[in-house]
């Protein structure tokens, strides 16, 4: 297998597609990294499930206010123009289609847009948080993920084998190897690492990659 993007590079690539003025929810963990790579000059307003709009970076150590946290329970700060609201209003923003972009992680994404990212099946403690709401709310639901599992198995599949988070909800997948839109229940390849052939990419993808228009080079700086 050829080289692949680091998580930071995947996050960087996803960040480039967030337009100026967008309202964005970043999932807990890996997706939070996307905020670091906001292009200069763009203004992005971040929403967190627990009732803050327009929060900023983490405060310096020692200056945490534990009443001012994000959905990951990490302390944040406020940008000018921030606001507080209760959980029902927060999810009105989500479910009502007011967010422009939500970025989540994934265990599996199916070619019809089904997402599995909350449960690895029986035996563990299930925990869903806001993911099932987010995938049906935001105008664009983006997944950032390694292209394959640690065992090398495809995460982009014909049909998810793990419990679903949402049905037909993913619009774009940013992986360590490619950028793929989901259009009419097919994986449409938009960009791939230049070092990799389409055949090589197809070999590590669990469903057909459709070519519809030019396939760009996925070129990401060291970050």
């Amino acid at each position, binding site marked *: 297998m050829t080289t692949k993007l680091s998580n930071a590079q995947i996050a960087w690539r996803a960040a480039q597609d967030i337009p*100026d*003025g967008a*309202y964005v929810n970043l999932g807990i963990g890996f997706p939070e990294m996307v905020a670091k790579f906001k292009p200069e000059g763009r*203004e992005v*307003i971040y*929403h967190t499930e627990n009732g803050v*709009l*327009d929060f900023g970076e983490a405060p310096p150590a020692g200056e945490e206010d534990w009443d001012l946290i994000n959905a990951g329970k990490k302390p944040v700060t*406020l*940008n*000018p*123009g*921030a*606001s*507080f*609201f209760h959980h*029902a*209003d927060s*999810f*009105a*923003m*989500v*479910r*009502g*289609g*007011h*967010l422009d972009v939500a970025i989540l992680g994934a265990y599996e994404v199916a070619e019809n847009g089904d997402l599995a990212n909350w449960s690895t099946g029986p035996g563990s403690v299930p925990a869903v948080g806001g993911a099932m709401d987010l995938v*049906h*709310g935001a105008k664009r639901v983006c997944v950032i993920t390694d292209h394959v599992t640690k065992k090398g198995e495809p995460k982009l599949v014909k049909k998810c084998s793990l419990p679903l988070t949402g049905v037909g909800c993913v619009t774009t997948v940013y992986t360590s190897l490619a950028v793929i839109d989901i259009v009419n229940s097919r994986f449409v390849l938009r960009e791939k690492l230049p070092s990799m052939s389409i055949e090589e990419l197809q070999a590590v993808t669990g469903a057909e990659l459709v070519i519809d228009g030019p396939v760009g080079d996925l070129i990401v700086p060291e970050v």
Partner: protein
Amino acid sequence: MNKVYPGIEDALADIQDGMSVMIGGFGGSGAPIELIHTLIDRYRKTGSPGNLTVINNNAGNGAVGIAAMIYAGMVKKMVCSFPRSSDPKAFTDKYLAGEIELELVPQGTLAERIRAGGAGIPAFYTPTSYGTLVAEGKPVAEFDGRMYVQERWLKADVAIIKAELADTKGNLTYNKAARNFSPLMAMAAKLTIVQARKIVPAGGIDPEHVITPGIFVDRIVEVSDPKQEEVLLREGVQA
């Protein structure tokens, strides 16, 4: 990000024939008189926007605001709970002549339908109107031994509302009971246009005091000395 528009005309430019328009206010409290009358002026000059469906608690009073829209002939249909007022002639005459449609919605159901529209809830159940004419044709269901009516969300192409303060990112406060339907309408419309008494920089409203977060607001114009419908009525403004 700056949602401020210099002129009312520009801010309203995308309101077109046949649209559904939520208008904030309860009687004169919170009625965005300057937005409404700028729209009326355009209609009188250009014949557009006409054929509007207007959503408000009431159906106009005297010859100002929504009543003036009705007199001008812009309104095809009213969705409201209480099409009566101290001077309801504008609506009443057209309604009894069959020249304007009415969808009568109980006030709490109207509020909740608008909130549902903004919150992505396509339908909900309420005890309100069960067994009455207003519920005719609507699905009913029993929960915990009581009967309820299924109501659908209500959305609109545009909301025009009046705020007290707005910041440049669209965060809003309201003045006293002028709040009423406006925070809900801001959520439920594709395009939300606000006249604010004062526009302040982002950060100029305490985050704890924001009533409508900016995510629900698209365009803001400052109207620093807004007219009060009730005062105009008492001054005897005519159609």
